[in-house]
């Protein structure tokens, strides 16, 4: 039976149902793997007992013929999902010790579908970062190493860095992530796994710590496209508690999986060939094009003319929304409180926020406050919202000519810890290919394409039209079948 923790979610589900192993054996395998991998710093909190309780319920359900879609499957949950009675801190000191008395809609749906919880996953503070280095718990270390004989610690990407490292290292068969401007897709690419951000509004945001509300979307990360489809089906759906939740039925994405792309047109946007991107990135993109052709798709050149303005647009809108959302951390109702000797209420607010937020979060609060302040609102925020309209329009025009768009996920493979922390703009550029789809609210997925010359994974990125998660998953499956990506990080931890 051995190494249950290295199986895919689908293999675990089907093997459990076929009686090859028990849910308790699955949960125990992952609980043990998590303890043995603490040096990766992927989990902020481990909840082995919760995983076992759910496993025992799954074993009982199997005995009584009462199985649910995710019975027997334990999952890791990103730290910004509110989980009842379990620390939910969004990677921040300002929420240290916060135990929500309620459960987020997404994690609640997964649990109602029979899934257990292995623990909470490390992340960039308030999901602001692309390397997991802004976490109050310290960076996650990628299980991957370069093959150059050096021993440099690499980033698993971010902000869902703990999520990506956990799946990649066999510390969870599937996890939740969130994606505001690439936070599911870039870490998935860096660690050789799959991850999908659905259409904005598919997943309820209720109970997810807010970063930039018009962009935030939850989604699954797992080893395979099918694994992602299974999880996505059990995370999405209408929720009256989120005003932007889409009141639509949940498609049966797993049953709808098909890698036959005959009749599909795949657009290749010329603006995504940018200067300074390593040749290997463009080479894997070219291979992806060939794979989709092989699956029956027709490839067409397209143009998304406002692509180069997506990142600066994002870095106005996301900080602006963040500065508003993070105003709630004031030391009154939850989390940290700092009261200077003899200080008044206002001094308490300022001291609490100064002590509780890390450098990147403060930087973004400052940018956001600035661009929303009197006299600058029109020049920055309103201008950015107008450019966002144009970016959205670019995609609308493109989807008149094609069904899907293929690009690389990120402009590089995983980089070393500390390599980019001193240069915020260099860090922001990581999401150059991921951000436009976020600004347009579109479903988008990263799947592994292959390894670069240093032995590190590179991802391919599929963007679909509104609500066409099925098209994205199917093209992802077509790539997965042809890429034959089976590489795993060699265990050193």
């Amino acid at each position, binding site marked *: 039976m051995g190494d249950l923790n290295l199986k895919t979610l689908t293999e675990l589900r089907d093997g459990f149902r076929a009686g090859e192993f028990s849910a308790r054996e699955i949960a125990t395998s992952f609980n043990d793997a998590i303890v043995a991998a603490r040096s990766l710093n992927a989990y902020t909190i481990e909840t082995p007992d919760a995983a076992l309780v759910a496993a025992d319920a799954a074993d009982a359900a199997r005995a009584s013929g009462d199985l649910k879609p995710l019975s027997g499957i334990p999952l890791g949950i990103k730290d910004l999902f509110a989980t009842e009675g379990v620390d939910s801190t969004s990677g921040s000191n300002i929420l240290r*010790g916060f*135990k*929500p*008395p*309620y459960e987020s809609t997404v994690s609640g749906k997964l649990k109602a579908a029979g899934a257990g919880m292995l623990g909470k996953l490390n992340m960039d503070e308030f999901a602001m970062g692309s390397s997991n280095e802004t976490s109050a718990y310290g960076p996650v270390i990628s299980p991957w190493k370069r093959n150059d004989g050096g021993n440099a610690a690499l980033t698993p990407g971010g902000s869902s860095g703990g999520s990506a490292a956990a799946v990649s290292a066999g510390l969870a068969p599937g996890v939740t992530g969130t994606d505001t401007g690439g936070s599911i897709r870039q870490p998935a690419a860096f660690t050789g796994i799959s991850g999908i951000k659905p259409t*904005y*509004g598919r997943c309820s945001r209720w109970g997810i710590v807010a970063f930039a509300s*018009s*962009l935030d979307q939850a989604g699954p990360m797992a080893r395979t496209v099918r694994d992602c489809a299974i999880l996505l089906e059990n995370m999405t759906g209408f929720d*009256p508690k989120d005003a*932007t939740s*889409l009141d639509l039925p949940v498609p049966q994405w797993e049953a709808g999986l098909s890698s036959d792309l005959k009749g599909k047109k795949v657009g290749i946007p010329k603006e995504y060939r940018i200067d300074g991107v390593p040749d290997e990135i463009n080479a894997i993109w070219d291979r992806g094009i060939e794979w989709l052709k092989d699956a029956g798709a027709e490839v067409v050149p397209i143009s998304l003319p*406002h692509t180069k*303005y997506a990142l*600066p*647009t994002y*870095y*106005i809108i996301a900080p602006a929304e963040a*500065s508003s959302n993070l*105003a709630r951390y004031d*030391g*009154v109702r*939850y*989390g*940290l*409180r700092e009261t200077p000797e003899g*200080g*008044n*209420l206002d*001094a*308490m*607010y*300022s*001291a609490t*926020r*100064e002590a509780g*937020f890390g*450098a990147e979060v*403060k*930087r973004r*609060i*400052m*940018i956001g*406050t*600035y661009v929303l302040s009197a006299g600058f609102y029109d020049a920055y925020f*309103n*201008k*950015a*919202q*107008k*450019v*966002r*309209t*144009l970016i*959205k329009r670019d995609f609308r025009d493109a989807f008149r000519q094609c069904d899907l768009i293929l690009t690389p996920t990120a402009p590089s493979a995983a980089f070393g810890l500390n390599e980019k922390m001193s240069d*915020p*703009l260099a860090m922001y550029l990581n999401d150059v290919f991921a951000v436009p789809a976020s600004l*347009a*609210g579109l479903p988008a997925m990263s799947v592994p394409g292959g390894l670069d010359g240093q032995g590190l994974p590179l991802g391919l990125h599929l963007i679909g039209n*509104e609500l066409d998660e099925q098209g994205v998953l199917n093209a992802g499956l077509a790539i997965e079948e042809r890429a034959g990506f089976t590489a795993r990080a060699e265990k050193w931890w």
Partner: protein
Amino acid sequence: MSVTEKDVLHVAKLARLALGDAEIERMVPELNNILGWVEQLGEVNTDGVEPLTAVIDNQLRLRDDVVNDGDCRDAVLSNAPDAQHGFFAVPKVIE
């Protein structure tokens, strides 16, 4: 347009961040760098373009005007740094 130390202090006050001197000094060039970069949006012609307000078309819903929550005071207060007599307690506001 360039941000000065005075601007940083003003924004920090609006954002309720008690930044230290070293942080303020560091933030002046950082903010200028980022704001200088985002100002490239000025190149884009947005005449007659409406700002985006909803990324996916969706009707805002109305719900029935009835109480659907409440009676959970202790749960609401359970994470408070200082809860007293069923309230959140804060430093004195009125002398």
